[in-house]
């Protein structure tokens, strides 16, 4: 009975190998073939609408179009392509419009309002992160910490060369900064530089030669070296000059934390005294909008805890 029903149900292709080896014929339903034809029709419609076939050095561009606004405010209509779709989405997409509306809201709020509102702060954090990555990270590092001490200031720590208040940070971003310390290699003798290095390292609690440090102290406050003029009498630096605080544990130019021993530390500090430093931060006013500068100010302020 089972054999009979199988004979009824399953046809063979009629081929026979080795006398008795046959293959079943289980035909597809015919509509399955139609779904294949449907994919062919779909492909043809796709070719007509969208970029498809390479022709010479170009390609068939298709009939579908995308309209967006170019950088100079003109309406541009091109053949459909994902780059234009992206530009259009960023200009008039639902989420882009929502983001822009919120940007206007944050832009018209005062700094005090933004800093006290957790929602606006969260927005400043996420959009500030993107702006920072686009404009600042090349020097300051993606997280606000440069790859190495000495190249650019670390924005994560609590030491601020030019001041960490909202007003000072905004000024730094808008107008840029020029950090300069003259080279003393030709002004001072090697022994004097050694004495100064001992004094400076002693300020932040490093084990140094006391006699040399005392000599360095005198030199620091003398008019021959004149260090105090910028670093101040207390050696704590001043924001107006962007001069570093030499008494704390943060090093912004000489990579002291990375040194192996006190000799290495001295060598690194001496190199800075000998060669001086010149660091330049460009002005961003005009390149970034007021809203963007505001977001970046809040973001940088929050990175190091602000002042």
């Amino acid at each position: 009975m089972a054999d009979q029903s199988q004979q009824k149900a399953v046809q063979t292709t009629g081929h026979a190998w080795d006398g008795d080896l046959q293959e079943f014929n289980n035909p597809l339903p015919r509509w399955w073939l139609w779904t294949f034809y449907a994919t062919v029709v779909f492909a043809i419609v796709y070719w007509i609408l969208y970029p498809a076939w390479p022709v010479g050095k170009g390609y068939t561009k298709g009939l579908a179009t995308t309209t967006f606004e170019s950088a100079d405010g003109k309406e541009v209509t091109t053949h459909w392509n994902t780059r234009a779709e992206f530009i259009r989405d960023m200009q008039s997409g639902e989420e882009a419009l929502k983001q822009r509306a919120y940007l206007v809201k944050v832009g018209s709020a005062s700094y005090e309002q933004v800093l006290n509102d957790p929602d606006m702060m969260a927005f400043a954090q996420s959009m500030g992160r993107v702006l920072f990555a686009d404009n600042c990270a090349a020097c300051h590092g993606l997280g606000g910490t440069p790859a190495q001490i000495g190249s650019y200031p670390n924005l994560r720590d609590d030491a601020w060369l030019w001041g960490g208040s909202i007003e000072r940070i905004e000024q730094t971003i808008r107008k840029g900064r020029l950090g300069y310390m003259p080279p003393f290699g030709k002004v001072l003798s090697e022994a004097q530089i050694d004495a100064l290095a001992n004094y400076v390292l002693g300020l932040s609690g490093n084990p140094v030669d006391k006699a040399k440090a005392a000599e360095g102290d005198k030199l620091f406050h003398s008019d021959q070296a004149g260090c105090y003029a910028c670093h101040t009498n207390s050696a704590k630096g001043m924001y107006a000059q962007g001069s570093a605080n030499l008494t704390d544990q943060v090093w912004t130019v000489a990579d002291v934390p990375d040194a192996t021993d006190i000799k290495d530390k001295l060598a690194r500090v001496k190199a800075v005294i000998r060669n001086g430093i010149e660091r330049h931060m460009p002005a961003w006013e005009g390149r970034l909008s007021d809203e963007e500068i505001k977001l970046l100010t809040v973001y940088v302020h929050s990175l190091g805890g602000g002042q």
Partner: protein
Amino acid sequence: MPEAEEPQLYAPRQSIFPRSVKGRFRRLKWGLLALAYGVYFLLPWLRWHRESGPDQAVLFDLVGRKFYLFDLVVYPQDIFWLAGLLMIFAYLLFFVTGIAGRVFCGYFCFQTLWTDVFIFMERLIQGERPARIRLSKQPWNLAKIVKVGLTHLLWLLVAFATGLTFVLYWGNAPDLVVEFFTGKAPFAAYATAAFLTATTYVMAGIAREQVCTYMCPYARFQSAMFDRDTLIVSYDEARGEGKKGRAKLGRDLKTEEQREAAGVGDCIDCGYCVQVCPTGIDIRNGLQIQCISCALCVDACDTIMDSLGWERGLVAYSSQREEEGGEKARLLRPKVLGYAAVLVVAVSLLAWSVGHQAPFDLTVSQVRQPIFTLLSDGRIENAYEVKVNNKTNHSLGLAFSLEGLPGGELDMGRFRHVVLRSGQRLRLSARIKARPKVFDGKTHPVTIVATPDPGAKLPPLKHETVFYVPAS
């Protein structure tokens, strides 16, 4: 093997005109269908009181990223519940299939339910099986156009009601219906309704048994869950065929005694079981892949046996073991027990998890770039991103504190204490500062605690993270 026929490349579609039948399984199926349709079509209209949020009992709010299920609100963070639910459905299917075969296919699958309704409408307009066969064969005339056209129109109406109802689960139903018919609903609503109208119409009206036979993967992998004890709809071959096979009710073959004397079985070959089959198979040929276990052939045969005054059960639920040896199918088998054990564990875990849904969420992740910062006073600072989410119906005040790092200081700027609206999510930045005793280059466990205001009467929530201390 006969080689007479030319092998075919494509199988032609056999038209199926199922005859209607009455009986206990048909009644059960109508009952289940009424229940399923009642739930599906009415649920979006059920109102539900909530302190905050919409007043719809079941609402999938994609824009707000919240699923409302009666008193439960499901947030995106609860996505693993969906995984649990899918697992439970899968094991429930395996469990039920292991015991009772394709009950899902025959009684609960929406393909079966909607096809049942579409066949019912077809019969309502075009009549019983013979009338429908006649109509399909007759040339096109006005009567045929009206009848067939009306059938398709009814199908489209039900298909559209199905598609529209699905859309209503994703928005406030009373508003959405008005918006839908005044052209103000979102594009996605029209697209979804149109797509589901089309698929319902095609699948339940036109494709029907082709879906079960050729499209559905479940029909194909069911054999992995079947064994000798699984319930199947089957034909009692020994009784039906007798010694000389089945025979129609002839002149001398009217009573069971006459038939036994003549050596023929109880099957009178009336063909009713074949005519009612929605997939067009003959159950007397044994278990076939097309069989969805709808049991309508059981009802058909029972009807005939009742009318002859013979015992029911010539076509009945049975198992391979019963067919072959006459033994009863065993229920407690290792496979079934295994499925049941997994099912119990999964259901308990999900129930526990849903029952213990935290009233608010706290997650803390360490900022890795940079992994630490040296501060001017020589302390080490690690930064963190803190996310909180208020799932209660009220606004909730949270105070943050630090545990597990002696001498450590938690700095959250101005947000050491925040107040969250109901449903509000917040991302805050936190910094932990500490003066390590040893610079060991290792991570140390720390815990950030969010303590609700005393008025909320909620327990504090803790999240463990790590504090990295660089090597000296």
